[in-house]
Each structure stands twice: as structure tokens, then as C-alpha cells.
């Protein structure tokens, strides 16, 4: 037997399941609890969800999906979800990146600023943040109205959460406040990977600060931006407590999104079949985003 065939045999042996199981038995035992948890807490509900959504009147059917897709309320909710997700993600990106750029400068007490600006919104529990914003938006004694009035921006107190478009804006602002911190943290970390030499070289070539930003910073941190945006999209679509607490989907369904609607169908109306249909449609969207995200990561590795 030549050495080559011998190696091949060993390789074959190494690839066999049995060998793998014996060789890595300890590792497999170690992950059993996690596998069990994932099966019970993730896989089982997802499968159950899919089964329920395809059942109507005791048989398999697409009725639930068709009902949902042809419901005008669902169209409004889809528009709401798009407005909510796109605005939040874009603003998170702009505010987060802008703030990261500011915090990336070498200034005295930089660490303190970072902690205060980045950690406080992010660490505030969802419900606390939602209730606080609700009070700030209040049309009778809200602090926001008071400030805007004193600045002369508005003439009278605005009922922020009571007018459909204002309410949309109000929940988006609140969510950006809550969410920009995470984005900013990611971008700050990214900015610190940009080698100083590149800036120096660019400066020597006569690039001004805007050119340095677009030609040096952006290309280097591009992968981080893509990753963060993907994650923000997923988080924002699925973000429930803020809207639920602030407006409960109102006024006139202006702030209803997929998740608040699915919640209402399941827990208020006990209409599990339509609720699962809505959440599966939501799942497909999030899943698509996640696939793109994963592919972009794989692409980067290669």
C-alpha cells in the first residue's frame, strides 16, 4: 500500500460519522443541552407555527394566507412596517455613524461621553423608555411640547400620539433614540480599525476631510456598515414593546406593524391561524434579510 492510499483511507475514516462520533464524543455531549433547548424553544414552535398557519376548517389550505393578503388592513400594516423599518434603519445609520465619528476623536473625557451617550438609551428597559417617551409627547404637560414651544418652533401643543402621521413620527423618533446607541457602538469599533497611516497618506495627497471620509473611512468600514444595517433591519421589524406601549398600534392603525398585528390576532382575538400566517410572512421577510446578511459575510471571508 502506498502512503497516498493509506492517507486516503485515514481520511475516509476521518470523514465517517462513526469515527466522528467517537472522536468528538465529549464535544457532542457538551452541546446536547443547547441542542435540546434550541429544539424545544425554537424548532418546535416554528414548526408548529407553520403547521397552524396552513390549516383552516380542519384541512390543509392556503385560506389563512389569502385572507391576510387580501385584507386592506394588512396592506396598511405593510406600508406602516415599511415606513417604520426604513426610517428607523436610515436614521440609526446616520445618527449612529455621525455620533461614532464624533466620539472617535481624541478628546478629554472621551470615555465618559461614550458611556453616557451610548449606554444610557441602550440600557434603558424597553417599557421604561416607552412610558417615558409617552409622557414626553403628552399634549397637556409633555416636556417636548414645552421645549418646542419655548424655542418658538410650534405655536401650540401638538397631540403627538393622537394624529396618525405625527404618531408614526413619534414612535420612529423614540425608536431611533433607543436604537442608535447600538449602531454607534458598532461603528465606533469599526472606526478604530481604520489605520491612521491611510489618513496620513491621503492627507499628504491633498485630500480634504470630506474626501478622507468618503475615500478612506467608508471603504474600510463598509463591511461593518452592511452588517449593522442588516441587524438593525431585523431588530426593527421585530421590535414590539415600544409601539405596543406607546400607541398600541393606534391612532387609526397608523402605527400597527406586523408584530403588533400578529400579537393582537393571537392574544386578543385568539385567532391563532391568521396570527401565525402574519408572523410567517414576517418571518419570510426577516429570513430573506438574514440570508443576504449571511451570504455577505461568507463572501467577505472568501
Amino acid at each position, binding site marked *: 500500500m502506498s502512503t497516498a492510499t493509506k492517507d486516503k483511507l485515514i481520511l475516509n475514516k476521518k470523514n465517517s460519522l462513526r469515527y466522528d462520533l467517537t472522536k468528538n*464524543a465529549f464535544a457532542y*455531549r457538551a452541546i*446536547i*443541552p443547547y441542542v435540546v433547548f434550541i429544539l424545544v424553544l425554537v424548532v418546535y414552535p416554528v414548526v408548529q407555527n407553520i403547521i397552524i398557519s396552513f390549516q383552516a376548517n380542519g384541512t390543509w389550505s392556503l385560506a389563512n394566507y389569502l385572507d391576510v393578503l387580501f385584507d386592506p388592513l394588512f396592506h396598511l400594516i405593510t406600508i406602516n412596517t415599511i415606513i417604520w423599518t426604513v426610517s428607523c434603519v436610515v436614521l440609526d445609520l446616520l445618527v449612529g455613524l455621525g455620533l461614532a465619528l464624533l466620539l472617535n476623536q481624541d478628546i478629554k473625557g472621551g470615555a465618559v461621553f461614550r458611556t453616557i451617550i451610548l449606554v444610557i438609551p441602550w440600557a434603558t428597559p424597553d417599557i421604561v423608555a416607552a412610558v417615558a417617551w409617552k409622557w414626553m409627547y*403628552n*399634549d*397637556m404637560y409633555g416636556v417636548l411640547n414645552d421645549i418646542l414651544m419655548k424655542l418658538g418652533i410650534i405655536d*401650540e*401643543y*401638538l*397631540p*403627538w*400620539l*393622537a*394624529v*396618525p402621521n405625527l*404618531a408614526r413620527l413619534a414612535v420612529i423618533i423614540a425608536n431611533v433614540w433607543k436604537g442608535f446607541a447600538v449602531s454607534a457602538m458598532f461603528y465606533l469599533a469599526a472606526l478604530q480599525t481604520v489605520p491612521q497611516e491611510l489618513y496620513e497618506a491621503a492627507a499628504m495627497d491633498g485630500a480634504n476631510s470630506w474626501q478622507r471620509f468618503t475615500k478612506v473611512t467608508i471603504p474600510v468600514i463598509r463591511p461593518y456598515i452592511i452588517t449593522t444595517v442588516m441587524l438593525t433591519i431585523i431588530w426593527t421589524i421585530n421590535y414590539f414593546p415600544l409601539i405596543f406601549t406607546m*400607541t*398600541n*398600534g*393606534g*391612532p*387609526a*392603525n397608523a402605527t400597527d406593524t406586523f408584530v403588533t398585528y400578529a400579537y*393582537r390576532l393571537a*392574544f*386578543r*382575538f*385568539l*385567532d391563532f391561524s391568521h396570527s401565525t400566517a402574519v408572523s410567517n410572512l414576517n418571518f419570510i421577510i426577516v429570513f430573506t434579510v438574514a440570508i443576504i446578511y449571511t451570504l455577505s459575510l461568507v463572501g467577505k471571508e472568501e
Partner: protein
Amino acid sequence: MRKGFVYVLMVFLLVFAASSMVVAAGEKLTVWVGGHVVEEEDTWKEIISDFTKQTGIEVEYQLIGFEVYYDKLVAAYSAGQGPDVCFADLGGWVPTFAAQGWLEPLDDRLATSDATEQIWPNLWPTVTYEGKRYGLPWYTDCRLLLYNTKMFTDAGLDPQKPPVTWDDLLATAQKLTDESKKIYGYGVTGAKSETATLAYMIYLYGAGGEFLTEDYSKAAFNTPEGLEALKFYTDLFVQYKVSPPGTLSYTEDDYRTMMAQNKVAMAIGGPWSFPLIEMANPEIKGNYAVAIHPYKATPASVLGGWASVISKTSTQKDAAWKFVDFITSYDVWMKWVEENGGPMPTRQDVCKDAPTFQADPKWQVIFETFPYAKVRPPIPQYPQISDQIQTMIQNVLSGQDTAENAIQKAEEEVNKLLAK
């Protein structure tokens, strides 16, 4: 390998230990209490220890805040793990749960209880589903006009003479409203919440309208009376502006808080509002009163409250019934009222006999109003119907739709739901 088995065995033992602990706990009677009464923790403790002393039945009880109570119950019942006894809101929970097969019918047991004939008769439909009774109402309430007497006096109005008709209501509210000071005469419930539906019902019934047909098979509110009720109710905000600009984001609870701060003079409230308004501002004590809500054709109100129900899957239904019967007994209720002053018992004898009630004119107004109070449709589709009514109200309040269109749409949607 052996080590591996030991490991797996240990995990299994752990899991079994945990689940057998649940079984052991199941031998005690599990009771879940929700609603406003959960704040009376000490009284519950006392009542339950009295029960255990008398019957030897151990009770494991949980007092659960309203915000999470419904979700928790639904989750537990759908998993087949419902508590032996729990409180269910009279706003349609009992028929909804009964339709899912989660509750035990109680007719035979009710026949043996002295509470049964003392219960206010208009409460029974709330716990009835397809001809069977599934619960014993425990406490109740009805909606009234809650108003701030100090604001009445300040505006030169007689606090002894609250508005009686819709016209009075509008005139009074206009006199009380002072937009420059952010003071408003009447709070129109406009947020997407159950209380908006209830408000519309009070106006609808007050105009002489009906909500659904008698057999609950069709909507009955798209009539001249129903439209008039919707128009008048929404115009209080849209046209007359006697309600704050943020009306679409406010519920009864918000207005009650504003009333405590002398910002809103009138709103819908009920007996549960008394401790809460005083909690919001202790100085309001003695400066608020209740009256039958203003009406057009006939006095009207909507009732609410809670009933005790027994889970279908309970393994100790006899003990569960003993508990239900015990907490609804005359003595326990008299003691409860003496200690807490409220809420309103479902037993007429206690309402009549309790000294606390006899001394307070507010309670006399409540007892006077109660016979006019109607139940919410006790049908499983009710939550969805209510959602349609809320959408209708919000669409008119926000100016997105006319009252005529909105009521038409709501009727169609409600009929669709009822046809299912």
C-alpha cells in the same frame, strides 16, 4: 461512555424533579386573581387563610396585574395548564374561554349555592355560553359620569346638578372648557382600547339604540340612533373641542388622572375610580362625584366586573367550587367591603346591608344606575367586534372618515365576524 450516561441521567433527573415539583404543587388548589382587587393583598391573604382553616384545603394563589393577566391566562389554558380557579373579566372572557373548551360548566353547582339568587340578574348573561353558565360573578361595576365638583364651582356651575341630557352635557362642557388654560370639560375616550368601545355603547344605548341583534347574529348599531350617538360622541372632540387635543391617545384612566389635577372636569368612570383618583391626588377627596351618564332617550350604562371560573382540566373541581362559593358568601363579602370599601359586590344583599355603602351617596347613585347597565355581547367574537368599533371611533375622531362611512364599514366588518 459511562460518564456520558451518568450525565444524561442527571439531566433527566433534574428535569423530572422540576416537573414533579409542578405536580406536587398541583395538589394544592391553584387560584389566579386578576383585576383591580389584586391590590388588596392583605385581605386576600386573610380570606384564603380563613378558607384553609375552615376546609383544610391548601391554596396556592397568585395576584396578577391586569396588563399581563390575560396573556398569561391564555398561554396557560392553551397549554392545558390553567389554574383550578381564576378570575375572568365579564367583558366577554367567559364565553371566549368556554368556546375554546377551557372551562367547566357550573349549572349544577350553582343550584346548590345561596349566592346564586342574590346575584344581580343582569350579570348572568356575561357568564353564559350556549345556554350553560360557566362562572359565578364576584364583583361588578357600571360606568357612570365621574366629575370634578370643584371645577364645576369654579366655572359657576352647581355641582349638585350634573348634566342629565346630551344637550346639558355639551352646554356644561363648553362652559367648563378653557383652552387657554388647557382645561377641558369632558374627556372623550379615543385611544385604541376597550374603554372606547364602552363609551360608544353608553351613548348608543343612551340614544335608544342597540348594539347587536338579540340573538347576537348581526350588528344592530347602524341605525339613525347609532349614527347620532357616534356623531355626537365624536363631535364633542371634532366640532366642539371640549376634549383635549390628544383625545386619540387617551383612555378613561388618563382622564381620571387629569381630573385629579383639575384639568378635565367630566369623564366616564365608575366605582373603581374612587381609590385611584384619590391616589393620583389626595386633595381631590370630597371634590368629585358621580351621576348617571347623560343620555338622549333613556338612562344607560355598561357593566363590567369579574367572575370566578373553574378550569375544565382541574383535577380538584370540588375543592375549586368550595373556594368559589366561599369567596362569594355573604360573610366574606361583608368583611371585604368593611375592609376595603369596594368594589361593588355582585350580591344584592351585601350592596344593601353594608354600612360603608349606606353612608356614601356615590354608592347610592351606582346602585340606582346598575339596573340600567347592559352586558357586553357574551360571544367569543366580542374582542374582534370591539376592535372594529375602536377603529370606527378613531377613524372619525382623526378625520380620516365620515361618521356615515365609518359606521357602515364597521357594520360590514362586524357582520362578517358574526357570520363566521
